[in-house]
């Protein structure tokens, strides 16, 4: 006969919270959460007390008061009577402009330099190495102020363009003027334009012409893609690839040309009037300096990434492709680059993010981005450091997270599908 003993009934004891691994993680998490909440509460409490002593009540009403300062580089209408919030929006747009321009040029320069650094040409590869090392090892802020100094000190003043014995002249058939105040380029104008429509209850106006051009471009690229896909399917079916490159170009160019003709497109050239240029689009020095410095600085990092990416593709891949009889430029395009891209994209994302964050150094050369407007002049004028700095951080966080979301989505599309 066997005696069955009941397994000892587990009763919950307080010490099990610490010694039982089933509950310990719970305990640690609860303690961490409490600690975190206490810390936050302490900070908020301190802030409230301090602000009360200073006689400030945190609110965002100041954003609707007139800003009272001018912004010289802007995409939207703005006067010094506009509210702070509008100045902040213009700052955000300026940040985005410099980020997009910088990312594009940095990628182009970086890819070229990265490829050239792998070149068998001794002097070219050394030259690229010198470029990469010089730019990577000197602070970006120094490059920005240095570029600004170069623009101011070496370029001709607008008055040098004046008179019969002018010492400077405009480039490209009198359409581009490079001066030490900035660069004047022709601006696109429409004689039969569609006008603007107000959005957001009249706060902003969006040019219908621009919208139409963008819509036609998107449609054109889509049509071009369809043509390519059709050519692909014909190649799959018959082995012969129809020549479609001219159709693909025409799909984009012809509708755009028709639209521009319909809208009465012409270029407004900058002209020297009095002491300065008028007309045309005016890119200020600060924008150019920031753009050049950020692009060149980030390009040095991108070049290294591209080089590492290409080197990461095993030599066997190239050889196998060559053994299959694929021509060298197609080996690069069809075999090496797609594999290198997988290595390149993730660090490239973080470099785009770095460039966007570094664009906040605009404040050093007076380019009015979000740091210059909201966290710069608005902060100084209203004295609301808590609201402006937190709002500014939130905006940067939003921009960064959106960039990384988009790029991660792209990365996931490229990624090797594994088990």
């Amino acid at each position, binding site marked *: 006969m066997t005696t069955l003993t009941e397994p000892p009934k587990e009763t919950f004891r307080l010490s099990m919270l610490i010694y039982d691994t089933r509950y310990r993680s719970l305990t640690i998490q609860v303690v961490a959460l409490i600690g975190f909440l206490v810390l936050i509460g302490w900070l908020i409490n301190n802030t409230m007390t301090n602000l009360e002593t200073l006689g400030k009540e945190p609110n965002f009403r100041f954003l609707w008061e007139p800003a009272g300062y001018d912004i010289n580089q802007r995409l939207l209408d703005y006067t010094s009577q506009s509210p702070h919030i509008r100045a902040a929006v213009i700052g955000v747009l300026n940040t985005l402009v410099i980020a997009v321009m910088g990312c594009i040029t940095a990628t182009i320069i970086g890819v070229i330099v990265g490829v050239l650094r792998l070149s068998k040409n001794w002097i070219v590869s050394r030259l690229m190495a010198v470029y990469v090392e010089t730019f990577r090892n000197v602070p970006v802020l120094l490059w920005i102020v240095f570029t600004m100094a170069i623009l101011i000190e070496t370029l001709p003043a607008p008055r040098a363009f004046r008179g019969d014995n002018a010492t400077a002249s405009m480039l490209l058939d009198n359409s581009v003027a490079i001066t030490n105040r900035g660069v004047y380029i022709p601006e696109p104008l429409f004689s039969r334009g569609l006008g603007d429509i107000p959005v957001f209850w009249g706060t902003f106006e969006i040019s219908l012409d621009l919208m139409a051009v963008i819509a036609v471009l998107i449609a054109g690229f889509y049509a071009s893609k369809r043509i390519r896909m059709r050519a692909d399917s014909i190649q799959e079916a018959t082995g012969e690839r129809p020549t479609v490159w001219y159709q693909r170009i025409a799909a984009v160019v012809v509708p755009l040309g028709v639209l521009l003709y319909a809208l009465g497109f012409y270029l407004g050239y900058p002209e020297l009037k009095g002491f300065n240029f008028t007309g045309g689009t005016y890119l200020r020095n600060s924008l150019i300096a920031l753009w050049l410095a950020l692009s060149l600085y980030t390009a040095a990092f991108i070049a290294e990434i591209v080089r590492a990416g290409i080197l990461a593709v095993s030599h066997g891949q190239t050889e196998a492709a060559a053994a299959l009889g694929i021509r060298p430029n197609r080996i690069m395009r069809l075999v090496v680059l797609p594999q290198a891209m997988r290595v390149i994209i993730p660090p490239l994302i973080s470099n785009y993010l770095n460039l966007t964050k570094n664009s906040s*150094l605009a404040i050093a050369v007076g380019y009015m981005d979000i740091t210059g407007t909201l966290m710069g002049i608005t902060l100084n004028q209203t004295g609301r450091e808590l609201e402006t700095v937190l709002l500014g951080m939130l905006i940067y966080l939003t921009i960064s997270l959106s960039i990384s979301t988009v790029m991660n989505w792209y990365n996931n599309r490229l990624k090797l599908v594994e088990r």
Partner: protein
Amino acid sequence: MNEVSFVRTEMLEQEAPPASTVGVIGWLRANLFSNALNSVLTIIALFSVFSLLYGFLPWAYSPTWAAASLSECRDILHSLGREGHFSGACWGVVRDRWVQLLFGFYPSEHYWRPVLAFFLTFAALAPVLFAEKTPAKMIWVSVLYPFVMPWLLWGGTVWTPVVALLGFVVGIYVYRTVTAAMGSLFGLIAAVVAAAIWWLFIASSVSSGLAGILELAMEPVSSRQFGGLMLSLTIGIVAIGFSLPLGIVLALGRQSDLLIVKALCVGFIEFIRGVPLITLLFVASTLLNIFMPPGTNFDIIMRVIIMATLFSSAYMAEVIRGGLAALPKGQYEGGDSLGLNYWQAQRLIIMPQALKISIPGIVSNFIGLFKDTTLVSVIGLLDPLGLSTAIRANAEWNGVVWELYGFIALLFFVFCFSMARYSMYLERKLQTGHK
């Protein structure tokens, strides 16, 4: 026997290789002019190098070393018959101000202190940098360095760092005793509490009491007098030193299974990495005093160091997470199968390997932070870049641009480039895998 042979029996003299494949010409053909495109590239490259040097060298060769102001420079160049805006560099500004660019307004009779601290940094890092070549005792320099370095830089009584060090001693002692009685968890909690009590409530009175008995003080130097490269190095070294342990904790938190801990760590890391350093410096200069209890007022360099530490700890966490992720799963499982608990496995198996893998990343993180210290000039601190603005505002040197920026760039380049080379050397040394 037939004597006719169809094979040559004697050796032929070796022929010289064709002239076009050896020597200078061969090298040129192989490396510079191998095809049309390469030739064009070579010519473009040579032309651009030549035109750069053609502009730069005559400008750089300028006997203005002794000049005491920009107008004196112009006079010297004028007497040599060199006129115009870019006729020659004005090196006098570098001779006149290089000490200031290195030390800021630090009192000149105390320059030995930052210099000594700087060299002590190397001694303290030696056990990490050149692990196999340093005697084991050197680790004590590393342990004591965090207490000696602030004392050297800021001065004051020696008892402040000693008492701060005693806090750790108290902590360890409490940990030992309590662990023996009640177990390691309570020991840890008790040690942290004891050390915190020591630092917050006892330390200041003890150190002032000891200073009353025996002063042993160096002349204090206020943070306002810090400047130049010394300021950049101080911020960089202190921030990276503190951010390493913080980064390890954050990385472990991000890898952990505990949901709330993980969420907190991810939130912190992503927040810090999502905003530019300059906004954090704005927080340091305008907001940090608001966040602290009323009446707290610690100086701007401390605030900047705190924010720089938080900033770089987020990046450090990502570097170390990379190291942790690079370890094969077998290492974790090996630790588990040996019966080690979480912290033992981390200390004995995971961290030594993960940190070793991430050393190059840590070094490049440091280079980045060191370069980013120039941003403090935006909030008004006098790092080399901030000093350059001050020097250019000076009547004597108003108008000097290239020489100053060039010198500052050279300072940073020397530091960053040598660190980058070191990290590459380390990478090669640590590379044990196969390609």
